[in-house]
């Protein structure tokens, strides 16, 4: 028996050895450098990335790019597992929801030395995108797809209901009045709907009520106080009184929201640049990308969210990775993204809007409104380590409030859990 076990152990070691030897050989290969570039996306998005990769390889024939693609749902898990398994991609896109966790775990290389050395002009990038990429004075990535989370307005629904569009300076009271102006029990048209999957959806209303979910320094939970409770109670009241579709409480209803909006059953919903791209594919739909309702004394209520392109700390080809990152998030890369209409322009180059906009295509005011949001109405998310864990406590509490619990009780019950997450993730 002992001998059998020894034979088995030897076999496992030999197999492991073969694997390790293979890895060593590939690292020692000479010739063009091959970089692994990780990103998420649907087939359309993958096509755009492929075009950008080809353009880069033409300019840099000594660097080959190997795409590592995944759907968004499992993307960050996959990347994290790759890094843990010593197979880290050299360049990777990271959603800012997870960005701070990646930095805390030491997965990301600081780009500050490269930026300083090459004199990269950071004014080219949206200010809020850069803010999200900076931790302890170091820049850990260049912003990608930085854009507002707009309020999308269905123009046809507003016209049919005889309700004028709100101004860009509309308040939370205007918002409530408009939602209550619709009569869904009669005509099956709702003023507003949400999916309860994401803090970003409810935060604008929390800010508009003068509240917040985390303190300024993100070290305290404030979701059970004043403005936040008022905002959650407003959502709960609108829901319980039938002004929002019953399925709004379902976190898995993103596709349904888009369907209701495009079928003219819904006047307003939150929507990212990605959502706009999907809605634009629906024929004859007329819609606008708007600011979020605001507080009487504060305009900064529209979420301005970013992602980052970062270099893995474990990358063995950091110079080549930096060359590719510079291209991807430089003028050339941005131009290709914008021409493909992957997202609205994110660099401060006004002419890029000419490539993105198509005459007669909605939302027609996206340029003006996006610039306004960036300048006056934008607000970054309270991102920090453990953000996903905090979100996983807050959203079920919001659902509980929508299902009848008082907002004060629902948001108060999770205080201890959230403070524990904050404490654990502050080590």
């Amino acid at each position, binding site marked *: 028996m002992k001998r059998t076990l020894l034979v088995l152990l030897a076999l496992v070691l030999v197999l492991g050895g073969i694997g390790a030897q293979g890895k060593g050989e590939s690292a020692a290969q000479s010739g063009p450098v091959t970089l692994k570039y990780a990103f998420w996306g649907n087939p359309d998005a993958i096509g755009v990335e492929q075009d950008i990769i080809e353009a880069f390889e033409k300019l840099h024939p000594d660097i080959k790019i190997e795409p590592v693609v995944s759907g968004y749902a499992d993307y960050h898990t996959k990347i994290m597992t790759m890094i843990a398994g010593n197979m880290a991609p050299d360049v990777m896109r990271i959603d800012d929801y997870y960005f701070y966790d990646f930095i805390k775990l030491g997965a990301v290389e600081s780009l500050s030395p490269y930026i300083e050395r090459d004199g990269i002009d950071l004014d080219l990038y949206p200010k809020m995108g850069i803010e999200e990429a900076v931790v302890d004075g170091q820049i850990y990535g260049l912003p990608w797809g930085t854009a507002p989370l707009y309020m999308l307005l269905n123009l046809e629904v507003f016209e049919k209901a005889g309700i004028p569009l709100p101004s860009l300076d509309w308040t939370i009271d205007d918002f409530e009045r408009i939602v209550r102006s619709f009569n869904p029990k009669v005509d099956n048209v709702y003023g507003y709907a949400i999916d*309860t999957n994401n803090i970003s959806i409810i935060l604008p209303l929390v800010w508009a009520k003068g509240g917040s979910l985390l303190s300024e320094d993100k070290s305290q939970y404030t979701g059970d106080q004043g403005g936040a409770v008022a905002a959650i109670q407003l959502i709960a009241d609108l829901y319980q009184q039938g002004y929002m579709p019953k399925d709004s409480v379902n976190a*898995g209803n993103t596709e349904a929201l888009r*369907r209701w909006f495009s079928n003219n059953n819904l006047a307003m919903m939150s929507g990212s640049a990605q959502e706009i791209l999907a809605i634009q594919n629906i024929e004859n739909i007329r819609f606008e990308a708007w600011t979020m309702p605001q507080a009487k004394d504060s305009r900064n209520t529209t979420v301005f969210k970013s992602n980052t392109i970062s270099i893995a700390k474990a990358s063995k080809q950091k110079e080549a990775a930096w060359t590719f990152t510079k291209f991807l998030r430089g003028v050339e890369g941005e131009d290709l993204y914008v021409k493909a209409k992957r997202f609205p322009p994110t660099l401060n180059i006004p002419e890029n809007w000419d490539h993105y906009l198509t005459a007669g295509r909605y939302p027609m005011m996206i340029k003006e409104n996006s610039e306004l949001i960036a300048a006056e109405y934008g607000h970054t998310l309270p991102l920090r380590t453990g953000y996903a864990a905090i979100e996983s406590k807050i959203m079920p509490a919001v659902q509980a409030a929508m299902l009848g619990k008082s907002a004060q009780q629902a948001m108060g019950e999770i205080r201890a859990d959230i403070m524990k997450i904050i404490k654990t993730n502050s080590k």
Partner: protein
Amino acid sequence: MDRLEGFPASLSHPSGYYLMNKSRMVRAEHRAALLFLLPNIIGFLIFSLIPTVSSFALSFVDWGLLDKPSFTGLANYRELLKDSIFWLTLKNTALYSFVKVPLNLVLSLLLAILLNKQLRGRNFFRAIAFLPSVCSSVAVALIWAPLLESSNNGLINHMLSFFGIDAIPFLVSPAWAMPSVIFVGLWKELGYFMVIFLAGLQGISRSYYEAASIDGANARTVFFNVTLPLISPTTFFALTTSLIGSFQIFDLTSVLTKGGPANATNTLVMYIYQNGFQFFRMGYASALSLILFVAIFIITLVQNHYSDKWVFN
């Protein structure tokens, strides 16, 4: 026969010589068997045993996947005992399993009995019934989500409205969400277990039924005293695999309800996934996994223990 020189007395004896040869043969056979089993053993070691043991070890550390694990003793288990979401997900998982599995067994057996009869288009109906089980759970959830919408936009509620029935909050009420998930789970798995039961039913010799018929047994007696006992090994297999599978429910709830509303359909595996791969708490996720492992292990042991009483071999 003379004693063989140079050999011990026992082996120099004819029977000793035979014993030595026999033991050599047995050893050779063992080696051959081991060689054939080796691919499976290596697979089991790499993909099952080592991860299970590692997971057990990880449950005593705090580890964020990329940082250095730090030993925390029983801290993860102590936290788990105080974690209300853990208890809720355990309750949800048990509810899903203990309601869905009996329903699954009964309905798939009835379906198998029905489709075991000489009906017109029998093969067509068998194929239709089996079809959902070859679909991935994600696809099934994506198909059912719009059908189960709670407003009249949902197909089922739209149809119910023709009969004056108010819209049912299938996926948005804590009371309805779990039954809806169980229903979709049943719809997906019924065909698979129907095929298992069909195989069991077709393995019963006609002679039992003929004997029962001669004895004057009615259909009910035949079913309870002949069919059910004779397919009991199949039922045992279906019960065990269905229960283990149900305890691992993840993809269906993950897409259909994302564990909501208000954690009403959040399950243990989903919670393990969240802790491990969204919150990067590998130690805590491992502790949760171990609880799931122990729960499934105990249930399987109990099933095996009591199988002697009702499984007819």
